[in-house]
């Protein structure tokens, strides 16, 4: 009910809505993957799978300290090194230290949202280290100097024409818009980088405490090369991205690839957990696992939001969300866009700072239905709004909109007494008169609710409200009208 706030979110949204390329891509991805995932869940043979994985995710979170210690022990046993980073800064500093100690000149990266979250690239580049993204989408984004707009499909805001032009500019290829040709050009450029890199940095889809291995899924094979070709492999892992057992790891990965790309299994599933051993044909000389907190402990400690850490980062909620489907990823101004981003970004980076993410959805519930682990994101968005409404000490939230709070305080008074409420409606009915235009609709409103009439009309308050009609017509009624024939009643 506040006056329109021209925030970065709204600006970003407007820009996205005005881009036909983006709108078309968003339509395509949602039509195919969002609806596809919904269909897939319906057809899933093992209907208990999603609940089972959710249960194991929540159980893991409840014992995360023990499971992470077990994971660290197992990785160390395999000859790997483990570093617990409390903050993004600590994770970056450790990564830089490893790179510098090993005279790393060039880094190839496997697709990793966590690496974006801690902003590792600028730090490496500042230290004189070349960083190359090897996921095709991320590579395109990097060449364009852009940021990803989708968790799984980072460059959906660009089409083959944009990419063709970019490759001609940056890779010096002959102008083309043919996807296979463009892919070959990227492949050629990336192969050279992969073969000569000193260090591979990846994320971690899901580690397993039982084995001390991290699992990485990909369809391009670039992640496998990034983890086997360079001398050093360093994996960045959000601290919740772990399972206790291999069974849980397998089931969770099966949901991940289904939710992300409707695949029973991705083309590549790599398990890494330590340097190469004697006799291994390939593999790194050093393996580092950086387990990153960066605000997750605080989420873990709050039972209202712990569920958000059960997320397996498949991106399905982006593919179904009608808001994301219009505004794309950049409007969220966060590493994590879409419904999951709207919940965890405020929690990781400040609720007030990202108030628009808490409030800028319709709570339609599609994200809950499509989520492989049934994360109740609408519930958590609503809980965040509660914190913004009155302020909250635990999450250091200030009251977001004093004017709006007054409106609801007044609303509360009005709805508390039916006579006052009905008087208010009568007054509004009088006040609206000058605003009623043709076909009996209000075309322009002033004040707090004016946003409504920017692009649409509003029906006026009726000449007679139902309660007035009730008083006149029904309150003192005596007789019922006759019933319809019995036979039409029950042919369901």
């Amino acid at each position, binding site marked *: *009910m506040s006056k*329109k706030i021209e925030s970065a979110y709204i600006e970003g*949204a407007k820009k996205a*809505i005005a881009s036909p390329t983006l709108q078309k891509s968003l339509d395509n991805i949602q039509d195919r993957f969002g609806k596809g995932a919904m269909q897939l869940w319906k057809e899933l043979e093992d209907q208990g799978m999603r609940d089972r994985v959710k249960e194991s995710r929540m159980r893991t979170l409840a014992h995360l300290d023990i499971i992470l210690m077990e994971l660290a022990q197992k990785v160390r046993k395999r000859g790997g090194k483990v570093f617990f980073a409390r903050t993004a800064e600590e994770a970056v500093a450790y990564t830089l230290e490893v790179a510098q100690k090993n005279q790393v000149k060039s880094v190839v990266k496997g697709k990793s949202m966590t690496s974006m979250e801690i902003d590792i690239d600028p730090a490496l580049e500042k230290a004189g280290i070349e960083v190359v993204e090897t996921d095709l989408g991320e590579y395109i984004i990097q060449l364009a100097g852009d940021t990803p707009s989708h968790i799984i499909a980072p460059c959906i805001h660009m089409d083959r024409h944009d990419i063709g032009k970019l490759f001609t500019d940056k890779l010096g290829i002959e102008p083309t818009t043919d996807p296979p040709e463009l892919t070959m050009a990227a492949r050629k450029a990336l192969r050279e980088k992969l073969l000569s890199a000193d260090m591979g940095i990846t994320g971690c889809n899901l580690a397993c405490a039982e084995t001390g291995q991290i699992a990485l899924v990909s369809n391009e094979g670039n992640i496998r090369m990034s983890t086997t070709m360079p001398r050093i492999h360093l994996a960045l892992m959000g601290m919740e991205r772990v399972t206790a057992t291999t069974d849980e790891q397998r089931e969770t990965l099966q949901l991940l690839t289904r939710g992300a790309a409707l695949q029973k299994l991705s083309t590549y599933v790599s398990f890494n957990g330590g340097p190469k051993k004697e006799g291994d044909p390939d593999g790194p000389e050093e393996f580092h696992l950086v387990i990153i907190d960066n605000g997750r402990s605080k989420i873990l400690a709050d039972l209202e939001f712990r569920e958000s850490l059960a997320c397996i980062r498949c991106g399905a909620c982006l593919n179904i969300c*009608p808001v994301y489907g219009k*505004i794309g990823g950049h409007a969220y101004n966060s590493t994590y866009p879409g419904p999951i981003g709207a919940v965890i970004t405020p929690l990781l980076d400040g609720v007030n700072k990202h108030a628009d993410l808490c*409030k*800028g*959805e*319709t*709570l*339609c*519930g*599609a994200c*809950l239905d499509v989520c492989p682990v049934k994360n109740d994101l609408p519930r958590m968005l*609503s809980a*965040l*709004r*509660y*914190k*913004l*409404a*009155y302020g909250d000490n635990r999450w250091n939230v200030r009251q977001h909109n004093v004017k*709006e*709070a007054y409106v*609801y305080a007044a609303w*509360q008074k009005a*709805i*508390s007494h*039916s006579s006052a*409420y009905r008087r208010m*409606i009568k007054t509004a009915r009088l006040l609206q008169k000058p605003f009623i235009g043709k076909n009996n*609709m209000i*075309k322009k409103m002033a004040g707090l*609710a*004016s*946003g*409504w009439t920017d*692009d*649409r*009309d*509003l*029906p*006026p308050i*009726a000449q007679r*409200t*139902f*309660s007035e*009609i*009730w008083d006149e017509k*029904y309150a003192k009624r005596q007789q*019922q009208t*006759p*019933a*319809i*024939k019995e036979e*039409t009643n*029950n*042919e*369901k």
Partner: protein
Amino acid sequence: MAGKKVSLFVQCLVDSMFPQAAEAMVSIFQRLQIDFDYPTQQTCCGQPAFNSGYRKDATVAARRFIEIFENEAVIVCPSGSCVHMVRHHYPELFADDPEMLARAKTVGSKTFEFTQYLVDELNLSNIGAEFPGKVTYHDSCHLSRGLQINSQPRTLLRHIKGLEFIEMKDSDTCCGFGGTFAINYPDISTAMVDEKIENILASGAEVVTGCDISCLMNIQGRLSRREENVKVMHIAELLASTAGGQS
């Protein structure tokens, strides 16, 4: 159906802006010889405040609602989102108050959305309505996803004599209303309702209907601004229609 009695829970928006939907519901109950009452103390269930985060204010509305309605046997409402509020969010509001929580759950268990009541509780599918025309149906979010009510309104629509029912594409995609969302983020909301309208137009329907007036108000408001020639009617209005017009 004699002997049955329902208590009318009329959404505030229906009361003040779309009384014809409530009147239609009343006329159907009359036709079915179901007795009805309307507790005149009722105002708003608290949903706008709850969805905007103002739970303390919403709790005042919820407590009031429970006090007004808890002695009624059956509560029927021509709005899915209000029923969703009562059934699913009232218990959240009173999670720390065992006594109120129990009362909230009791009220929730006897609160029904209008089409749900007709089809699931009364076992009806044909209530003798007649409406000539092509009609498409919008699945409102809290009705279809929150209350899992998808088939009931369709069953009733398909049994209306003369009515040609046409499914639109993505009928269960949000229309972009979202309460104050439509006011605070009009650009996004309009992009969403425009997509809904494209799907309505593509269906070739003359009338778009649904069980939630808030979504229908959003769709109607945009249709009107775009000067599109599609009529918006609450499902109760269609069900109240008979050969001689609306009963």
